[in-house]
């Protein structure tokens, strides 16, 4: 029988992959993709909790939907920043975008 632990396990692994991407990628877009993976991992948790722990008001679904909305907003703004940085600095590698570094 597939229980909550199975879903949370997949989610934990996916979260780990996303975090690894965020931590090691130099390209800003690739980092954004890592973040999307982490957000999806969180969403799996939300939806799994709805089914296995607390289905009232389908709270987890609502949370997941709001997370998807925010992910879209985040992608839009983040990618706009990437474009802007690329046009000004000719690079999207975050270790070269260091204007704030003293």
């Amino acid at each position, binding site marked *: 029988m597939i229980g909550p632990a199975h879903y949370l396990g997949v989610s934990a692994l996916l979260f780990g992959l996303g975090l690894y991407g965020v931590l090691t990628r130099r390209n800003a877009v690739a980092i954004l993709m890592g973040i999307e993976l982490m957000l999806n991992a969180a969403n799996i948790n939300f939806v799994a909790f709805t089914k296995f722990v607390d289905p009232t008001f389908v709270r987890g679904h609502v949370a997941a*939907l709001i997370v*998807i*909305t925010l992910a*879209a*907003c985040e992608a*839009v703004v983040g*990618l*706009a920043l990437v*474009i802007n940085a690329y*046009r000004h600095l000719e690079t999207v590698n975050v270790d070269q975008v260091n204007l704030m570094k003293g």
Partner: protein
Amino acid sequence: MPLDWAYVAVFALVGAVMAVLPLGVVWLLAPRSQYAHKRIPYESGIVPFGEAWSQFHVRYYLFGLAFLLFDIEVIYIYPWAVVLRELGGFALVEMAVFLGVLGVALAYAWKKGALEWA
């Protein structure tokens, strides 16, 4: 419930087959030539140079983002439409406010020329 999703699976399968089948048929039936010249993109033109990837103008990104943000509305409008009859005027006002704010967003995008083609 699982049976409903079987339809989805069948559809996905048929879709995949529809995509792969023509390729397979072509691979089976089409004659192949062995000349080296046949392998370049244009047999009678200049050999292309540089990257095959080409960069887009930023403007297309603006369409993309406007599309995405208004795509999100479906998350909210669809469930709203489902329960509208049940909840009545209150839901109508709530959605009016929601769409009003998004209308402001649209107006801003419009005014900034984010929707202008070319």
